Each structure stands twice: as C-alpha cells, then as structure tokens.
C-alpha cells in the first residue's frame, strides 16, 4: 500500500464520544460547542451542510410523455436516504437538461420510421439551493407504444459533494455507461420481442382481413366493390404497410449490436456473473460468436398466440405506459440494478478517500513486477495486471521520445475547482492500427500528428453558463461536440463543437446566474480524461448510412487506413477518429505520476493540488482491451518510463513519506479506520472503503494482532525477519485460537510467491514434512500430548534447519539471529501507532520500499551478470554486495531479505504463465538461537 487512505477526516462521533465521556466532563465554560449540525448521522465534513439528504444516492427518472419528469426509483431504495429532498423537483431539473435530440418518426425523405440509436449523454449539474450535485446519465429506451418509439430516462448520481462528482466524473461515467449499456441491451431485447409479437399480430390480422376480403370477393357478384369491401381493402393495405414498417424496425433493432461494434468504444454488455449461463448464451452479444448477418439474437420468443389488432394503434394519453421493468428484459434489468448498487457502494464515502484509494491502486497496478509480493491477491485479481512491458513493443523508439518531449513541453491542464484557468494541452497522437481484414498484413503505421493547438486545446476560459430562464446553467456536457444533437431542450447550448478535431471546445458564456441550478461543466475533466474524446464524434449513429444488406446491419468495410488526425478530416472518418481517440487516451492518463522526472521538476509549480487533479485510470472495457493488440497500452506508453525509474521514483517518494510522518499521521488518523468498520450504512463514512470487503476487516484485525505481537514479544524482530527472508515460521501451540491469532498477525509480513493465496497455513495438526515448507512460509501447528504429538515434535527437530519455531505456549522463539535495521522500522515495539489498519498501512509502506529495493536489485543487469565475458565471478559478487550495502543501504541480514524478495521476483517474472513451476525451497545453513521473554 502506497498511501494511507485513512488520512481522512473523522466523521463518526460514537467512538470519539466514548473516549471523551470516560474522562471527567469539562466545565461548561471551557467546552467547545458541538458541531451545529450534529444531528444523528450528520456529516460535519459535508461541503453543503444544508443538503437535504444524508448520503449519496442514485436516482432514476423518466421524462414521461404523459406526466412529464418523474422519479422512478432510488438506490439505495430507502426513504431515509433522500430524506426531505424533493425528488420530483430534482427529476424535473435533471430531465430538463437532456437536450438531446430524440427525434424519431418519419424523417423527411424516408418512407419508414427509423429508430434513433442515440448515444447516452453525461452531464454534471448542481443545485446550489438544494445542496445537491449530480452526475446525470441520460439514455433512451425503446417502447413500441411510446411516441417516436423512445422513452427518455436518466440515471443520476446525486451527492452533496460537488468535488466528488467532478473528480469522479470519469469513473461515474464508465460505471454508469456499463449500467446503461446493460439496460439498453435488455431493452432492445424486450423491444425486439415486442416487435415480433406485434408482427405476429399484424400477420394474423392480415390473414383474417385477407380471408374476409376474399370471402367478400367471392360473395360479390355484382361486379363492383362495396364501400365495405373498399374499407376492408384499405385496412388490409394499412396492415401490410404496418407490417413492413415493423419488419423494418425489427431489422434495425437487430442490426444494432453489429453496427455498434464498429465503434471501438462500444462495449457490448457482457453479463458478468455466470448466474444463468444458458440464458446468457441465448442473448449473446459477442460479435465474434455470432455469424455475420445471422440474427439469432432475439430468437427466443416464447410461444405467443397472435390476436387481432386494429391497424391503427391508438396514440392517446389514456393508455398505460410500460414501467421500466417492463421495458427491459428481466435478466438485464436485475443486472442493471446490481450494477447500480455496485456504483452506489463504490462511490460511497468521502471523495478524498476514493481518490487516495484510486491513486494507490493505479500506482500499484503499474508495479506489475513487484505487486504480487505483498499486495492483496483479491485486489490484483480484480483487474488482472496488464502486461506492462508488452505495451511498449509496438512503438518505435523515436516515437516514444517525441511523445515524451511533447508531453513535457505541453503545460499540464490545471483544474482548480473553483475557476478554470485556460489550459493548453497538446495531444500527441500515435496511431497504430491493425488493418481489420489483413489480406495484406500492412502492419501498423504510427502517425504522429502535429500539434493542433486550436483544435486540441481545451479552452476552458470561455466557459460560462447560459441562463435559460429555467434556472439551469449547463456548463458543458459531453455531447456538446455532436452536431446532431442540437439541443431541443431548454438549455440550448452554444457549445461549439469541433467534431473534426476529435476534441470539443466548450465555449459558453455565463450571463445570468441567480438560478438555483448550475450545471457544472464536465469539460474540464476532458482535458485530462481521455474518454471524453469520444464525445467528439457524432453521437447519433443515425448519421451512419444504414446499410441494408442481407440481414441488415453487418457491415464489414475494411478499416480505412488510419486517418491522420490533422483536424481536417471529415466526419466520414468516424472510425479513424475513434481510433484516434483511443490513441489519445493513451499516455494521457494520470500524467502526474507518469511524467518523466525531468518534466516533474519543470511542472511541479502547477501541481499544488496534485492529488485532486489526477484522474484515476478508467476501467477499460473488454472491447477496448481488444484494441490493445494494436495499441500500446497506456502504461507502456505513459511517459515511456523505464520501469526502474518508476520504481526508483516511488522509492524515494515513499522514503520521504515514511520518514516524515509515520508516527504523527498514524496517531491522528488511526481512529478513523477502525471507526469505519463499525459504521452503519447510514452515515457516509469517509474511511469506508470503496467496497467494504472482508479483506479490509481482515487487514485491520491482522494489523491489530501484529501490533499486539510486536509489543508483547521482544523477539518479534527475528521472527519477522524469518518470514521476510523466506524461512518458514512455525507457530506452535496448544490453543488453536491463540495460534491462529498469531498466524494472522504475522501473515502480513509474509511475501507471497505469486500464487493465488499467501503461503500461510493457519492450523496443522499432523507432522510437518519438507513439502510443507516449500508450500507454506507460515504455519500454525498444534502441540499435542498424544503419541502423534511426539512425531510432530520429532519432525520439527529434524527439519529445524528449515524452520523458525515460535512456541506460543512457552513464549520462546528459535530462529536465526537478526541484526539488521529494516525490521526495526517495520516493527518498533515503542511505536505510537494504535490502530490495526494504520499499522497495516505502515507495514505495507515499508514493505513496498523493500519491494522497490528488491526490484532495483533484481533488474540491474550488471549486478548479476558480468559486464565483459572475461570478468570473473568474484567481481560480480563484489559489485552485487556493494550495491546492496552502499546503494541500497542495507546491512547484515537485511541483505538476505532483499535477496529473497529478488529471488521471488525473478521466479515470478521468468515463470511461464501456463506453467505452475516447481516450488523450490531455499535455505541457509545458519545457526539458530533460542529467544525467551
């Protein structure tokens, strides 16, 4: 763990109060008045204390064609959450900023109604009066009965913390996009079903009508048509027309997924949980799986008895509109709700905590070589570490250099929250596009663009807001770049788009601002957040020529050769634009910690609030990962840093941190972390981890136990040294609970060897064998009086050379001597740290330092291999020892620790992915000593 996310304001009163009340109360005159808003669950740190809701929540609203904006549901579904907050009012607000054109129906010149495949729009708005700020995600769902077949919805993340919305915009956007994609997929499925039913009805109606007409014809011998017959014929014609229209709609909706796949940004929704595999399989959206042109997508239609219908559907207000649940396939609807709950959980808590967490995660992810050692496996599993090294391969050396040069030349965009300074930024673009159909495998060509200042720069200075009479200011939205989405809602934006450039420039002027709602711009984040590039291409796919080939929708136009991103390309180059966007993303992510050192020095000045401005790395969907093949991954490209540099920089960084503030920060902040775990859901607790996993609790407990251990046992140092140097430590005891507690405590010091679990075995009752020491580095062992117990002890004595033995009953430790200094810092028994999780952080930070040292040591070529062929082995050994002692400042046994970690790093690195590799046991022939209390 790199940072200490629990350096966050304390919000829970209970624990503090407990402490306070234990002491005699102060005289009235000396006491400090309590926080004025200290009602139950009030959050003194909330920016707007006057907000009417207690914690963040998600609101789904619809702009109903019958009743106007209305709230549908909130997540969490708890009346207490929204409190006195007026959901209706807020729904009106958020729905009214959906100026997205939802034009449907018969476009001029087209015979049939066309479906608009409208992109979602993402807006941030604020209501200063209500103290509410919201990320609003607009989307439209299809409904055959609705006007123009569409129903506008929006999902809003509502928080009292403006900063949180602004800073987490990217993450919110990504997460909500997933939810939206899921919902829309389900909706398309439901819509297709509905259409099919309708078609069956129509077909049936036609047959009936046809029969009737025929009968009439037969019956009619007068030679002319009765009005009745003509009416029937007209009706028949109208039914037939309706059939054609509906068929067309069906084809459109079915072709949607394929068409969208052209967009690299499109992440077809893939259900994450394999809850119902069969079900999932049936609506499989994977393009690769489904044959082109085949429309087996929505074929699972339950048997349906068609009924006679009127050709003209009544479009009146008395009909009941479908509910959200009805609009969407059940499976996808529940998935969406799950996703929304996940969002709610993820973004719960203070923004400061979220940011720290994200930053440390992002940093850790980059240390793909070392992070397996001490980090939680669960965390690493979450998003499998990407191949950091591979990323660079595609790029030529000079491309890299150039890019870095550019990056360092370009001033960084500064977003201070209050005011947007003008920000200039250049976007060096590298494109490496693999031709889709590779008949002639023209390999990637990388194109460097000129700096297109005018187009690429985000000129935030001309930001403003428009008064719309409706008391709404929209400062900018993602969609502003779209030419098609000329707003039809109240807030007509002058937001100028430069779709050609792939960047949007937002210029709006604030005129009147006595309004209560301000829409805060989403654009500032664009400066840093790469995914915003996607805003630049026209959002409605409608523009795309609708290709009416066999089954409709599958277009396999070969990818155009990568368009040069020079600002002059036309919209027809959408695809290449998309590519460009993706390329732009790369290397722009989190520039703060990826800048080369030189740049850092130069740029330090404008980085006062560095933490806040770093957009944590967005999650990349599967579709985008596909792109990775062609594009260097962002990590690889970012700044083009050598991994060493990264680490060494981090090394110094963490050194400073640990030097400066360990004790004080732990003291002052450690309370929070423990408070967090006891927090009820109701209060937003800043220290609450993003997703309160059991891991956190475990961490805390382990930290607490470890703290107790180092205080209680004077020989904690050699014990920890044993663990760090890879010597198996056996905790021997009669009492299972006690042994397990000790094992838990010590487990935080055990380096993992890259497997899925830490090599820790909490409780063993049988005699140990050599194989166990290979597998486990920390073992809890039962001491039994039975004959079996004798065997256990015998095995221990036999293998004593591989073991350190901590006897929990007699409080003795038998292990090699330790005279280094690292462990002393790691486990100072006089430490002022009081909280388990704080101590855990402390340990993690020291261990991270050790990892960095081990990394440096492992990856320095000359330390392990001779410079010239004739160089004798001894001089390499000398160099190695000198490095360890002088450069890394290690003494005595600390060297062994680093050597062991280095060995683990090597093994991990050279291990082939598929191959488990034989676990090997390394040991030393060193004498052991017996420590007693």
């Amino acid at each position, binding site marked *: 763990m790199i940072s200490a996310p629990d350096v966050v304001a304390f919000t829970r009163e209970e624990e503090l109060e407990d402490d306070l009340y234990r002491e005699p109360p102060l005289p009235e005159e000396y006491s400090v008045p309590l926080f004025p808003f200290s009602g139950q669950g009030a959050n003194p740190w909330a920016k707007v204390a006057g907000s009417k809701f207690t914690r963040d929540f998600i609101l789904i609203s619809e702009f109903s064609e019958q009743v106007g904006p209305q709230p549908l549901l909130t997540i969490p579904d708890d009346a207490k959450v929204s409190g006195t907050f007026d959901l209706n009012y807020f729904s009106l607000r958020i729905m009214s900023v959906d100026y997205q054109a939802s034009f449907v129906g018969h476009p001029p010149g087209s015979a049939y109604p066309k479906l608009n495949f409208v992109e979602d729009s993402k807006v941030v708005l604020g209501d200063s009066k209500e103290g509410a700020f919201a990320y609003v995600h607009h989307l439209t769902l299809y409904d055959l009965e609705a006007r123009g077949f569409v129903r506008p919805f929006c999902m809003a993340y509502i928080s009292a913390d403006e900063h949180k919305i602004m800073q987490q915009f990217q993450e919110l956007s990504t997460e909500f996009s997933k939810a939206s994609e899921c919902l829309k997929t389900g909706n398309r499925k439901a819509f297709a079903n509905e259409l099919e039913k309708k078609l069956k009805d129509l077909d049936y109606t036609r047959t009936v009508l046809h029969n009737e007409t025929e009968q009439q014809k037969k019956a009619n011998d007068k030679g002319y048509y009765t009005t009745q017959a003509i009416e029937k014929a007209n009706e028949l014609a109208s039914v037939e027309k309706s059939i054609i229209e509906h068929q067309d709609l069906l084809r459109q909706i079915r072709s949607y997924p394929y068409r969208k796949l052209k967009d690299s940004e499109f992440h077809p929704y893939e259900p994450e949980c394999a809850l119902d595999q069969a079900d999932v399989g049936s609506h499989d959206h994977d393009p690769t799986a489904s044959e082109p042109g085949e429309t087996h997508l929505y074929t699972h239609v339950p048997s349906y008895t068609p009924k006679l219908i009127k050709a003209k559907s009544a479009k009146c207000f008395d009909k009941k509109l479908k509910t959200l649940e009805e609009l969407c396939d059940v499976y996808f609807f529940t998935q969406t709700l799950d996703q929304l709950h996940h969002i709610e959980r993820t973004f719960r808590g203070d923004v400061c905590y979220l940011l720290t967490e994200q930053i440390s995660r992002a940093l850790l992810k980059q240390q793909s070589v070392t992070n397996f050692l001490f980090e939680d496996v669960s965390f690493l599993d979450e998003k499998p570490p990407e191949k950091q*090294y591979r990323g660079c391969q595609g790029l030529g050396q000079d491309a890299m250099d150039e890019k870095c040069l550019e990056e360092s030349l370009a001033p960084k965009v500064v977003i201070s929250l209050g005011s947007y300074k003008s920000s200039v930024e250049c976007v060096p673009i590298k494109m490496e596009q693999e031709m889709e159909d590779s008949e002639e495998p023209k390999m990637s060509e990388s194109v460097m663009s000129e700096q297109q200042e005018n187009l690429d720069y985000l000129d935030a200075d001309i930001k403003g807001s428009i008064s719309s009479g409706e008391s709404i200011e929209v400062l900018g939205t993602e969609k502003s770049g779209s030419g098609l989405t000329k707003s039809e809602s109240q807030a007509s934006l002058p937001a100028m788009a430069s779709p050609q450039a792939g960047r949007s420039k937002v210029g709006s002027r604030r005129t009147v601002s006595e309004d209560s709602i301000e829409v805060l711009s989403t654009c500032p984040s664009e400066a840093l957040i790469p995914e915003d590039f996607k805003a630049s291409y026209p959002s409605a796919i409608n523009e795309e020529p609708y290709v009416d080939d066999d089954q409709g929708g599958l277009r396999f136009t070969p990818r155009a050769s990568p368009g040069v991103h020079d600002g002059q390309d036309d919209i027809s180059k959408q695809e290449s634009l998309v590519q460009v966007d993706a390329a732009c993303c790369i290397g722009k992510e989190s520039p703060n910690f990826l800048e080369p050192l030189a740049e850092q020095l130069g740029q330090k000045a404008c980085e006062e609030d560095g933490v806040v401005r770093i957009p944590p790395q967005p999650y990349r969907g599967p579709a985008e990962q596909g792109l990775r093949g062609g594009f260097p991954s962002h990590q690889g490209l970012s700044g083009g840093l050598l991994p060493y540099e990264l680490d060494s920089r981090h090394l110094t960084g963490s050194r400073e941190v640990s030097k400066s503030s360990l004790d004080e920060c732990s003291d002052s902040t450690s309370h929070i972390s423990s408070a967090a775990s006891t927090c009820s859901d109701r209060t937003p607790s800043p220290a609450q981890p993003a997703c309160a996993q059991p891991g956190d609790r475990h961490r805390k407990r382990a930290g607490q136990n470890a703290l107790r251990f180092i205080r209680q046992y004077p020989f904690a140092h050699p014990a920890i040294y044993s663990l760090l140097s890879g010597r198996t430590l056996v905790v021997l005891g009669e009492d299972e609970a006690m042994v397990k507690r000790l094992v838990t405590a010590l487990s935080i010091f055990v380096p993992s060897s890259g497997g899925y679990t830490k090599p820790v075995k909490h409780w063993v009752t049988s005699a140990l*064998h*050599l194989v166990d020491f290979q597998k486990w580095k920390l073992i809890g062992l039962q001491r039994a009086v039975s004959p079996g117990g004798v065997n256990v002890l015998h095995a221990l*004595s036999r293998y004593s050379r591989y073991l350190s033995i901590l006897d929990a009953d007699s409080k003795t430790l038998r292990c090699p001597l330790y005279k280094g200094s690292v462990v002393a810092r790691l486990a100072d028994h006089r430490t002022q740290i009081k909280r388990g999780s704080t101590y855990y952080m402390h340990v993690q930070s020291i261990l991270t330092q050790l990892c960095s040292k081990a990394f440096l040591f492992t990856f320095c070529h000359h330390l392990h*291999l001779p410079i010239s062929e004739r160089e004798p082995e001894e001089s390499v050994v000398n160099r190695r020892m000198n490095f360890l002692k002088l450069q890394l400042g290690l003494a005595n046994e600390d060297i062994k620790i680093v050597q062991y970690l280095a060995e683990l790093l*090597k093994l991990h*690195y050279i291990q082939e992915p598929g191959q488990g590799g034989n676990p090997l*046991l390394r*040991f030393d022939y060193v*004498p052991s000593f017996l420590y007693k209390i």
Partner: protein
Amino acid sequence: KSSVQTIGEEQIQNPYTELLVLKGHQDIVRFLVQIDDFRFASAGDDGIIFLWNAQTGEKLHELHGHTHKITAIAPFSSSDVAEEKTNLIITASADRTVIVWDCTSGRQVQKVSCFQSTVKCLTVLQRLNVWLSGGSDLCVWNQKLDLLCKTSHLTDAGISALVELPKNCVAAAVGKELIIFRLSASNNGYEGWNILEVKRLVDHQDNISSLVSVNDLTFVTGSHIGELIVWDSLDWTKQASECNFWDSVHPDVQPEIKLSQSPHETSVQHLTSDEECVFAAVGKGIYVYNLQMKRVIACQRTAHDSSVLHIEKLPNRQLISCSEDGSVRIWELREKQQLPAEPVPTGFFNMWGFGRTNKQANQAAKKMQENTPVYFLELVGDLIGHSSAVQMFLYFGELGLATCSADHLIILWKDGERESSLRSLTLFKKLAQNGDLQLKL
C-alpha cells in the same frame, strides 16, 4: 548413545542451499540412473519409471508398463546405423519382464517376458553392443532384444551383481561364489555369441553383496560379513583381501564391536572407487581402502545413524553417503596433520528445548592411535530432507544432487548461488526477448 558425528547448522562448505521436491512415485524409489547430461530416470517399487530434467526438476515422462516393482535399471545408449544416438533405458521388474524404453519419446520400445525368474541385474556391454540380464541364469541380448545366448540354470537365488571385465569377460556374483563368464563369437551367424563359464571363485565366506570394477586391472568384491577382496581382472586371482578389516584398524576396540556387531552391521553395502582407493560402505560406517598400500587409510566407523546404502566419490576429494536414517552426508578426505586434530567443531550448542535425538555426539570415533591412517574423513555437510531411508543418489556435478528415498520422494539439491545467477540470466534473456531492455525515455 549414538556416536555419530554431527555437524552444526553452519555448513560453509555445503553448496546445496536450494532444493526441489519431485513428486510422482507412489512407493519406495530405489533407483536413479543418469541418461545424459541433464536427464535422469527414477524407478522403484511402484513399477513406474519417471524421467526428469535435472536442471528444472521438470517431469519429462512417466513410463508405465511394469506391474511389479523394478529390480534393475540400466541406461543404454545405442548408436544406430544412421549414427543417431538414441538413449534407451532397460528396466527389469519382479513381474519377470524386461522393457526397453526410448527416453526421448517416452515410449516402450520392446518388451521381453520369457524369463524364468526375476532379473536382478542388468549390465550393458557397450563395446559389444549387447546387454546381459542376470537372474537365475545369465542371458545375453542384443540391442534388438534378440536372445543371443544364455547359460544354464545357475542358482535359484540368482545373480546378484554383474560387472564387466576386460577380454569380453563378466564377473557374476552368485551367492558366495564369483563366476567368471566369457563371451565368445559363435561360429554361426555374424552376431552370434556364446557364453562360457570360465572360472568359479569361492574365496568369500558369505554372500557377495557388492561388486565393482576399479580399473582395467582390478575389481573388488565385498561380502555380507565384511570381507573385501581385490581381484586381478585379467587372471582372476586374489590380489589382496581385507577380512574384518575394521578390526585391523582398531584392534583395541575390537572386543566391544564384536559384541555388538551383527552381520548386518558389517555387511559391505556398497563399494565405489577411484583410481587409488576403494570406498566401502560397511554397516553404518565408511572405509577408505587404499589399493597401493593395501590397507584402510581412513574410516568413519559410524558415519550415519543406520546403514549406509550408497556412497559415491566426487571429483573434489569429497565423498557423499546416504543412509537408512534419511540423511545424506558429504565428507571430505583430508590429510591429517602431525598433531592429533581436535574433534571437528560441531557448531552451536543446541539450546532448543525439545527432543533432539542425536544430541551432541561430537566426541566421535576418532581416537588417536599410533597406527591410524594419515587420512581422515571430515563431515562437511549434511542434507536433511527425506523422512525415510535414502536409497540412492545421483551426483550431477554442477546441476546438483538427486536423492531418492523410501518416502516416495526424489529431492534435487542445488547450489543456491548458481541457481540464483542462472535465474538472473533467464530473466535478462526474457527481458531482452520482450524488448524491455532498450532504454525508453
């Protein structure tokens, strides 16, 4: 009280600081045999033969074919007409079959199952391109597993050991007797051989337990009651013999030893030799017999807690022994200084509380005598890993040491330093492969 010499935890000269446990066998592993520079085969009572990579510990092949325990194994590198050297191994099993395996493909080449009794030993006469199987009779086979000739039924007990001698002769240990056979080209057929009994040597008082060829001129036999006879390879005469030779070394301690010594404890379990000396594993002890001086020059009377099963001489004056007590020990043959040496320091005093069996027994068996040898064996390291008797080991030089044991395991002992630098090498190779070594700024 055990008088076994012990060494402390500090073993500077012991290079083996890394180990790999090779799992696969389901019963006692009795045989290890080297195939080439980096491969070896293991076999044991489960009837399965495994081929291993000695560097990585990777399991290369698993050879199934025998239904009973393996009784003998021998490597056989045959050079075909096409000059392609194929590595074969021949295995004999208690199911009375012999199978030839191809080590590269891991496939069974051929199987012979016409034996009257279990084949107890196999010898390959590389020079003649034939191999011999010894059971109740002695058979000569060619590479294609054609039976070329065989002797008449010799004994029910069967041939326990075979050794190749010059002039197309072999010596076979049959009970107490040593029988010399000669292979002679037969008149009919170009590849026909005849086998003739040439001589029977009946000098041993007890069953011959080990038989080893020292050089072209000498071979040595050892028997159950501790007789060691040096033979001339050419005329099969006794050159020297050492009967109860431990007595001659320490005549003063003889009485008590005699009391305690059961035949088993004096049995010559294994013999090995270099040009100068024969090294004998006798009971729990190790003896070094100098061929020139014709006497025991150094010994370690209780080298292990129980019987020594296998010993081998390393190029660097070191000797490795393994024993039923589950340990492997590394000894060094040193020249003794003028002054009687102090007992070897045995490391740190063991302060740890509970029951170590072999406590501080460093007052070991090196009582200075006037007629003691000028050399002595010093313990330089021990390898503890197996939980049961170590049956055999295979020294792979730089690659390390493979030991097999009754605990079903094979352990590869490696030089940690060397492995570490090898891994570094691999690491940088992989880095270069991935293109990460270039300086990317």
